[in-house]
């Protein structure tokens, strides 16, 4: 699945997008965030406060308990400040 990062999440992780294949036990958005934190310093720093991270699956907002099975694209970003 493709992960896309925005704003300070993108800056801290250091890349704008990547393709990942999480292991079988990673079922929900929350699981995904925890797994990403194990992938390196920059991930651990960017995702230090998981509750501050907003998530979209296939470009629609989801909660952290949403299941990620079947997701083509998952976006991770800070709370939005549009308008």
């Amino acid at each position, binding site marked *: 699945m493709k992960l896309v990062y925005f704003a300070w999440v993108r800056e801290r992780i250091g890349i704008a997008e990547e393709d990942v294949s999480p292991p079988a036990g990673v079922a929900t958005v929350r699981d995904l965030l925890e797994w990403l934190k194990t992938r390196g310093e920059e991930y651990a720093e960017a995702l230090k406060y998981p509750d501050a991270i907003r998530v979209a699956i296939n*470009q629609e907002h989801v909660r952290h308990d949403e299941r990620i099975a079947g997701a083509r694209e998952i976006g991770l970003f*800070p*709370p*939005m*400040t*549009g*308008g």
Partner: protein
Amino acid sequence: MSCRVTVRIQSEPFDTADEITAISGGDNDVGAVVTFSGLCRDEAGTLHALEIEHYPGMAEAEIGRIADAAAKRWPVTALTVVHRHGKIGIGEQIVLVVAASRHRQAAFSAAEFLMDFLKSRAPFWKKEHRCDGTEGGWVDAKEADDAALSRWDRGKQG
């Protein structure tokens, strides 16, 4: 009731008068047009510009969903949202919402609803460029904006 929804995300400035004409021209049943323009403030002279990042694809889709929700809730004949990205100078327009309806209440409510949801649900992020040349960092989301959403809760208000 059918409602024409127009959503555009662009880096170029836009012309409010053109958007008003586009939304009301040719439809003689429009009696009320409400616009909201969001401008880049200078924050007491400290800010030089804003840089706006967005999630391409999702930004259009999410604003479209918000507009559809507004169109279901109030009898509006047309809704337009234009949101800029990229570098925005002081005094420039960032966002424009235009709502047209027969009677004024629907246009006012739909425009306010759109803005409240845009602020907290549309995937845009603002970064400050300060006058002293430093980066001011990313603008924090405001609790007031989250609170503004709760008043549209159907259980609480008509």
